[in-house]
C-alpha cells in the first residue's frame, strides 16, 4: 500500500504544493526560497533568499490559462540575464498540461513567446547550427540570428531540472517570424524549442491578467512579425488602381494622339493669319511652335480668333484667355520661359468650326522663323499621371516599412550568414522595379 505524504519544505517546514508532472525535479519553497531536490528526499540544493527581483511580472506561479487550445498551469519560473548585454533580461514561465506536457511562456519587456520542445531538428552539432545560412525544420527555413550565453538570476516554483543561481546556458536563436527555434545547450545536452511570438493581449486574456498588470511591448523583438495591415491593404489596392490608371492612360493617349489641322511657317517679314477647322472639341487643341533659337521664338506674338473675336493671345511676356462675348480677359496664364526654343500650347476650345491663328513678328529686323502645327483631339494625361504617381507612393510605402523592418532585423543580428539580403521576403520587389520603370517611361512620353 502506498503511503500518503504531506509535503513540507525541509528547510522551513512550510507546506509545498506540487502542480507539475512526473518530470519535475526541483521545487523552490515560496517562503524561504530554498531549492529542493524532489529526487533526493527534498534535499536543499541552493537558496534564492537573498536574491530579490527588482520588478514584478504579470504572471505568477499557480495561474491557469488556455493557450493554443491547451489548458496550462504555470508551475515555475526562471529569470535570466545575458552575460554580455546585462540589461537584456527575461523570464521563462514553465507551463504544464497533464495531457500535452510542458511548454514555456517567455516574458521579455512585454513581448510574450510560447515555446514547446522540438523533436524534429536536424542532427547538427552546436557549431554546425551557427554556421548554417538556413536550417530547414518541418518544411520551414529558419535563419540563425543570435548566439549568446545567459545566467540564471532567479528561480521560483517547480522545474524539470535543478536550477541554481548563476548557472550558465548557451543559446542559439533561429528565426522565421513569428516563429523561431531556440537551441539550448546547458553543457550536458542540447535541446530545441519551437517558439512562437504571441499576441500579448490574447495571452493576458487567457491567464486573466488584470489590466493594470499588463505591459505593452514597445521595444524591438526579432520574432515580432512585421504587421501593417492598413498599409498592406493600401498597397494592394494601390497596385490594382495603378493597373487601371495605366490602362486608362494608354487608352486616352491612343485615342487622343491628335490630328493635324494646320501646319505653316512664319518669318520676321510678314504676319500670317492662318485659318484652321476643328471638326471635334474632344480632348484639347494643341499649337506646337518651334523656332531655331530662343531669340526667334521671343520675336513673335500670337492671337487666336473665332468668328473674328479674340479668344486667346500669347507673347513671351503674357498669355490671356478672352471672353468672346465681352472681349475682356477672363483668365491670365503663365507664358514660356525666355530661353525656350519650342513650346506647346494646350487649349480647351469648346466650339468646333473655323478659327484663325494670327502670328506676327515683333521686330522685323530680327531674322526669325517659326514652324507651327495645330492639332485637334490631343489628350493630356497629367492628372492621371499625378494620380498614378500618388498611387505608386502608396504602393511603395508598405515596402518602405518592410525594408526598414528588415534593416532593423539585420542591424540587431549577431550571427553573420551568407546569401542573405535585407530585401529578403519582399516578394513583390520585381513589381516595385516594374512600376518605377513604368512611371519613368510615362514621364518621358508625357514630358512636353
Amino acid at each position, binding site marked *: 500500500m502506498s503511503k500518503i505524504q504531506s509535503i513540507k519544505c525541509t528547510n522551513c517546514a512550510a507546506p509545498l504544493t506540487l502542480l507539475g508532472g*512526473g518530470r519535475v525535479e526541483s521545487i523552490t519553497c515560496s517562503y524561504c526560497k530554498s531549492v529542493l531536490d524532489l529526487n533526493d528526499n527534498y534535499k536543499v540544493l541552493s537558496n534564492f533568499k537573498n536574491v530579490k527581483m527588482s520588478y514584478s511580472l504579470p504572471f505568477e506561479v499557480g495561474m491557469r490559462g488556455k493557450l493554443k487550445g491547451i489548458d496550462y498551469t504555470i508551475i515555475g519560473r526562471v529569470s535570466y540575464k545575458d552575460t554580455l548585454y546585462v540589461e537584456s533580461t527575461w523570464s521563462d514561465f514553465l507551463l504544464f498540461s*497533464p495531457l*500535452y*506536457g510542458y511548454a514555456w511562456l517567455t516574458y521579455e519587456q512585454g513581448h510574450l513567446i510560447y515555446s514547446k520542445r522540438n*523533436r*524534429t*531538428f*536536424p*542532427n547538427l552539432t552546436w557549431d554546425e547550427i551557427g554556421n548554417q545560412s538556413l536550417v530547414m525544420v518541418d518544411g520551414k527555413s529558419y535563419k540563425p540570428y543570435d548566439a549568446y550565453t545567459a545566467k540564471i538570476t532567479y528561480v521560483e516554483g517547480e522545474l524539470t531540472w535543478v536550477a541554481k543561481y548563476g548557472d550558465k546556458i548557451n543559446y542559439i536563436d533561429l528565426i522565421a517570424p513569428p516563429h523561431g527555434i531556440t537551441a539550448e545547450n546547458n553543457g550536458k545536452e542540447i535541446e530545441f524549442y519551437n517558439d512562437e511570438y504571441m499576441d500579448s493581449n490574447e495571452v493576458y486574456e487567457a491567464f486573466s491578467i488584470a489590466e493594470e498588470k499588463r505591459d505593452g511591448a514597445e521595444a524591438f523583438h526579432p520574432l515580432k512579425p512585421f504587421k501593417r495591415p492598413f498599409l498592406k491593404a493600401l498597397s494592394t489596392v494601390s497596385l490594382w488602381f495603378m493597373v487601371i490608371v495605366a490602362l486608362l492612360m494608354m487608352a486616352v493617349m491612343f485615342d487622343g494622339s491628335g490630328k493635324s489641322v494646320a501646319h505653316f511657317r512664319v518669318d520676321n517679314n510678314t504676319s500670317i493669319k492662318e485659318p484652321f477647322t476643328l471638326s471635334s472639341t474632344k480632348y484639347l487643341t494643341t499649337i506646337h511652335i518651334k523656332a531655331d533659337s530662343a531669340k526667334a521664338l521671343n520675336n513673335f506674338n500670337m492671337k487666336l480668333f473665332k468668328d473674328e473675336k479674340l479668344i486667346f493671345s500669347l507673347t513671351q511676356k503674357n498669355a490671356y484667355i478672352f471672353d468672346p462675348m465681352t472681349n475682356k480677359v477672363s483668365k491670365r496664364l503663365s507664358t514660356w520661359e525666355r530661353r525656350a526654343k519650342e513650346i506647346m500650347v494646350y487649349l480647351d476650345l469648346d466650339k468646333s468650326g473655323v478659327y484663325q491663328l494670327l502670328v506676327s513678328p515683333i521686330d522685323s529686323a530680327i531674322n526669325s522663323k517659326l514652324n507651327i502645327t495645330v492639332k485637334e483631339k490631343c489628350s493630356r494625361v497629367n492628372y492621371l499621371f499625378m494620380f498614378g504617381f500618388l498611387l505608386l507612393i502608396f504602393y511603395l510605402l508598405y515596402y518602405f516599412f518592410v525594408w526598414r523592418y528588415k534593416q532593423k532585423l539585420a542591424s540587431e543580428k549577431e550571427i553573420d550568414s551568407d546569401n542573405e539580403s535585407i530585401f529578403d521576403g519582399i516578394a513583390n520587389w520585381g513589381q516595385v522595379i516594374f512600376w518605377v520603370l513604368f512611371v519613368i517611361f510615362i514621364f518621358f512620353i508625357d514630358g512636353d
Partner: protein
Amino acid sequence: MNCPQCGDALDIYFKWTKLVECRSCKSSIFLSDEGAKLIGKASTLSPEPSLIKLHEAITIDNKNYLPLGKIRYAYGRGFWEEWFLKGESNQEFWLSVDEGDFVLEKRTEISLPFKSPRVVRVGRRYGSYLATEVGEGRCVGFEGELPFSINIGKTHHYIHLSKGGGNLVTVEFTDGVDKIFQGKWIDPLTIKSVYS
C-alpha cells in the same frame, strides 16, 4: 473465448494477442495454442488524464489506429505509457506517451552501428544516429490486450537514437532480448479521435 476465472467473454481485437486483461474480474489471461490460462490478477492502474483511450479509434496523419492495450512504466517520480495500437492493415504499432511527448513506432529488424545497446552514451554519434536518451522504467501494470506477455515489476531498459527530422529508433533491452522500433515523434495536437 471466456475468462477462466469468472467466465465472462474476453474482448480480443487482435489476432496475435498473447496477454489480455478480463474486463470483469481484472484477471491477467495468457493466451496460448492450448487456450486461455489465468496467470494472476492484473494490478489496477491509477486513472490518469490521457488523450488516448482503450478501444476508441484515433487518427494520426490521416491513418486510423485502434488502441487495444497499454503498459505503464514508472520512472523517477513519474511514468510513461506504451500504447499497443492496431493499424489499418491489422499491423502492430506502439505509441509511447510521456507527459506530452508522443512517439509512434513499429517493430523493425535493422542493423545498428554498435554491438550492444548497453555501450551507448547520450550525446554520442553512432553512424547516422545521435543517442538522445538512455533510460529505464519499472513495469507497473497493463490494461487491455498485448501481443506478448509482460513481467510486472521488471525493469525495462531503452535507448533513443535520433536520425534527425523527428525520426527515431528505440532499442529496448530487457532480459537480454533486444527489440528495435522505428518511428517518428508526433505532435499531440495532430492526434484526433475518429468519432469526435
